[in-house]
C-alpha cells in the first residue's frame, strides 16, 4: 500500500489514487503532421525505466486532481511530487527518457490510463 503525498490533500493510501502512466507526454501540436509511426508513438509508446520515473497520478477519491510524481520503479519510493503545471524536476536525470517533455501539458496514452484488470494467466 503505497503512501502517496497528494499535493493538495497530503499523504493518503494508494487505494485512493488512479495511476496515469508516464508524465510529460503532451498531445501533439498537430496530429496530422505526424507520420503513422509518430502517432503510434504517442498512442502506445511510453518510457518504462527501471529507476526514477516521472509519472502521473490522480487522487481519484479525494480531490480528483491529477499531479505528477517521480517514483523509483525499482524501490517504489516517491522521490518527488509536483503539480501538473510544474516542469519535470531535473533531479531524476534521464528520467523521462526520449519522451517529449512538455510544459506541464501532459497526456497519457491509452496504456497509461488503462485500468488494471485481472491477470490473465
Amino acid at each position, binding site marked *: 500500500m503505497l503512501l502517496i503525498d497528494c499535493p493538495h490533500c497530503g499523504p*493518503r493510501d494508494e487505494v485512493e489514487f488512479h495511476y496515469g502512466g508516464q508524465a510529460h507526454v503532451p498531445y501533439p501540436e498537430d496530429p496530422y503532421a505526424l507520420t503513422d509511426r509518430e502517432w503510434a508513438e504517442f498512442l502506445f509508446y511510453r518510457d518504462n525505466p527501471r529507476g526514477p520515473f516521472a509519472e502521473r497520478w490522480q487522487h481519484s477519491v479525494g480531490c480528483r*486532481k491529477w499531479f505528477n510524481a517521480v517514483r523509483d520503479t525499482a524501490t517504489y519510493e516517491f522521490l518527488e511530487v509536483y503539480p501538473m503545471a510544474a516542469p519535470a524536476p531535473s533531479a531524476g536525470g534521464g528520467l523521462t527518457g526520449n519522451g517529449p517533455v512538455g510544459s506541464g501539458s501532459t497526456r497519457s496514452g491509452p496504456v497509461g490510463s488503462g485500468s488494471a484488470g485481472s491477470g490473465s494467466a
Partner: protein
Amino acid sequence: MHLRRSPAHGAAAEMAAASVAGPPGVMLREIAFAPQLGVRTVPGSASASRIERALGVSLPSSVGETTGDPDALHCVWISPDEFLTIDVSRTQEHGEAGAVAAALDDDRPGAGRVPGQVVDLSGNRAILELTGPSARAVLEKGCHVDLHPRAFPVGHAVSTLVGPVPMIVHRSHGETFRLLPRSSFAQYTVRWLIDAMLEFRTIRA
C-alpha cells in the same frame, strides 16, 4: 413533504435498532433532505467572492477544513476548486442553487459573467450520522484515513473511502461523524455500518 424519499429511507428502523446507547455506544441515523450545493471555483477569485457573498459563508482554503456552522450551513473542502455546502438545519427547496448560481451569471452592468459552477446536489449524497464513543472504532474498520483527534479534529472533513464506498467523512462534533456517500451507495453503506456496529451491541449485552 410526503413525496420525498431520502436515500436511506427504508433503513431508518434498522438503523435505530442497531444503535447502542451509552458507553461503548454508537448510533446511526440519517439526516434527510438537507440542501447541498456543489461549488466549483478558485478561492480568492472574483467568482469565489461572489459565491461567498451569496452563500453567506466563506470557502475553506485547505484540505480537511470546513467553514460555517456544522449544525446549520457549512462548507466542506473537496479540492482546491471544489466545495460542498450543506445546511443541516433546513430542507432542500426547488431552485436551491439558483441564487448562488445566479451570482456567477450576474448580468448587471459592470458585473458580468465569471467562471465557476454552482449546482444543487441535495439529492446526490446521503448524509448519515454516526455518533457515540465507538463511532471512530466503527469507521476504523474501513477508513484508511487517520481518525485520531490529533489528525482528525472536530470540524475536519475529507473525501476518502469507507470500506469500498467513496464518501466524505466529516467530524462534526467530538464523537459525531457525518458520512456522505453518493445516494446510490446509501443502502449498502447502512448495511456496512450496521454490521460494523454489531460488535458494540454485543459488548454491551
